[in-house]
């Protein structure tokens, strides 16, 4: 396996031909400053010590790997779950925001802005802001504030201001635009705490490094449980942060890496290369380059792009990207609840839906699959009830 895969990007922030820094000049100095600050912090053992301590004593790391005995039996494979749903705030998003909040503090910035789709990243950012005594503004599409209203209230309880975004499709991509607009105006004292492996360099790299803990823990845990690496590593992909973090732990093994997109938001599946939100990657767009609106039951995967490193991993053939439909996802949601007593978030239910569909087909009987359960499904229960009725 190539040693260069999932290492640092090149000097221009590229993973192969993808990534880069496509931002207005007003933001370039901030991107350069952030790049330097992260490089300095990431090579400082005391930064890691503090980050690890917060993730351990506050965030609940390490999260366990759970073997799904009943579901495995039904599927004829061996299914392990990396339980990011057990992280404080209920998803892997906390790993990233704690790191970025510590970085922001180190840079002397006391205000965080974030975009959110399902609300998980917004809740995580609001949580980190509360923990470190920082100001927090979360941009959330108006469509999403309606379908995730409890998460809006959670963020407000945590002291964040949630600003509904009324522009464009009023979902995640527009929330990103609005967060970028805020950052342009307030960059002197604000850090944009981006929620996934997307945006201009150095964000895709920073977020993947901060999520790497998921894959590195899982690798050790799998070796303890299995005595070897799993044959399959599966994670859902919107922007792709939990997948990137998971893949980083296994990229140098023989495991097949599979990212599962929502069929209605499949940037790898239906997109072509383009540039939006500061990065070159695969995007859902029309023939002249207008970005299209993603549509899925999962607000967290309603994003027309994908992180640039995923585009690179797909291009070089190291990872493959598959899709799951809304109907398959609801089935998977129910199956995990009934057989294992775990309610998955709708986002990782996509990864599970693909595994359920492909067990005994693409995934040979008896193979071992590690799936990152990136978040818990409590936030989705009301929506799932409505969809199942």
């Amino acid at each position, binding site marked *: 396996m190539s040693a260069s895969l999932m290492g640092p990007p090149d000097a221009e922030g590229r993973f192969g031909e993808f990534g880069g820094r496509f931002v207005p*000049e007003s933001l370039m100095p901030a991107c350069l400053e952030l790049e330097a600050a992260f490089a300095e912090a990431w090579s400082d053992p005391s930064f890691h010590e503090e980050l690890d301590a917060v993730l351990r004593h506050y965030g609940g790391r390490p999260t366990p790997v759970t073997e799904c005995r009943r579901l495995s039996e039904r599927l004829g494979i061996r299914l392990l779950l990396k339980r990011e749903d057990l992280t404080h705030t209920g998803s892997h998003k906390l790993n990233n925001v704690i790191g970025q909040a510590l970085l922001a503090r180190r840079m002397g910035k006391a205000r965080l802005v974030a975009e959110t789709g399902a609300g998980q990243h917004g809740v995580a950012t609001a949580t980190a802001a509360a923990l470190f005594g920082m100001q927090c503004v979360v941009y959330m599409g108006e469509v999403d504030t309606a379908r995730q209203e409890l998460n809006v209230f959670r963020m407000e309880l945590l002291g964040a201001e949630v600003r509904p975004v009324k522009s464009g499709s009023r979902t995640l991509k527009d929330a990103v635009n609005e967060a970028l*607009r805020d950052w342009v105006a307030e960059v002197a004292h604000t850090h944009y705490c981006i929620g996934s492996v997307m945006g201009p360099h150095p964000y895709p790299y920073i977020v993947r490094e901060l999520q790497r803990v998921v894959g590195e823990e899982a690798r050790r845990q799998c070796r303890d449980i299995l005595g070897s690496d799993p044959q399959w590593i599966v994670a859902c992909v919107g922007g792709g942060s939990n997948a990137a973090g998971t893949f980083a732990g296994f990229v140098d093994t023989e495991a097949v890496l599979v990212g599962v997109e929502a069929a209605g938001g499949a940037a790898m599946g239906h997109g072509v290369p383009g540039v939006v939100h500061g990065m070159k990657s695969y995007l859902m767009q029309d023939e002249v380059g207008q970005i299209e609106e993603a549509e899925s039951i999962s607000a967290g995967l309603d994003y027309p792009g994908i992180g640039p490193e995923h585009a690179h991993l797909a291009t070089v053939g190291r990872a493959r990207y598959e899709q799951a439909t809304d109907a398959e996802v609801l089935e998977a949601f129910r199956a995990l609840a009934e057989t294992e007593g775990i309610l998955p978030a709708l986002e990782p239910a996509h990864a599970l839906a693909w595994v359920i569909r492909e067990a005994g087909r693409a995934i040979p009987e008896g193979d071992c699959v590690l799936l990152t359960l990136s978040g818990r499904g409590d936030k989705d229960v009301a929506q799932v009830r409505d969809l199942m009725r």
Partner: protein
Amino acid sequence: MTVGARAPVAGQMEKHLRSRRDGGRKLLIPYVTAGMRGDWIHVVRALADGGADAIEVGIPFSDPMIDGPTIQAASLQALRRGTTPTQVLSELSTVDVDVPLCVMSYYNIVFRAGHRRFARSLAQAGVSGAIVVDLSLEEARDWCAEADDAGVATVLLVAPSTPDDRAARICERSRGFVYGVGRMGVTGERATLAGSAVEMARRLRGITDLPVCIGIGISSAEQAVEVAAESDGVVVGSALVRRLLEGADAEEAARFIGGIRDRLDAAFPG
């Protein structure tokens, strides 16, 4: 100049703007979003007649991240009307005005068309400048080379946050004029002029001989005059687009720009 770099060739837009600037005139560059209304091309003609020195024409993009609510609304309106880059250029090619046309858009529109094809289609439409607002200096090399070959000036932006050494490198690569961003933040009208606008003009004047035009947050004749004391000119966007969104016709748009023209000429008699 960087060793090995191609000598900058002043294209049509730069020659035009330099000659007007050197003649003592303050440059006035209005912005209009193409396709926002059926008569947008008449607005372009009227602006040329109303005292503009160049006209910035926005090709609408679905995700205009540096634009505030006014230009977002105009872009959305244009896209809902089915406006495409090809249509915009085809309409521009029918305009016979004596001032340069400079398109403004976001990089995905350029990337999707292909650098060479887009640069040539601009030249064929009689467009002599391009502002690709999310194309940073680091990412601009390939596009700039194709634009140079096609005779299209790539105007680069310098922001209040840009350090001086970086500003110098941007000015070296910019063609036509250099666009000084008047304030941090998105495009849009402001009640008062940001101090950063005047400071930006002063700073750029010390770095480059290119015409220095300041835009973003310049909403009125008073603000234009205030900035132009230190700059070679101003770009006026949202203040004009808002009037067009509110229903101003081409003549009214031209009168608004003409009013700024008169105030600039009165304040700076050349």
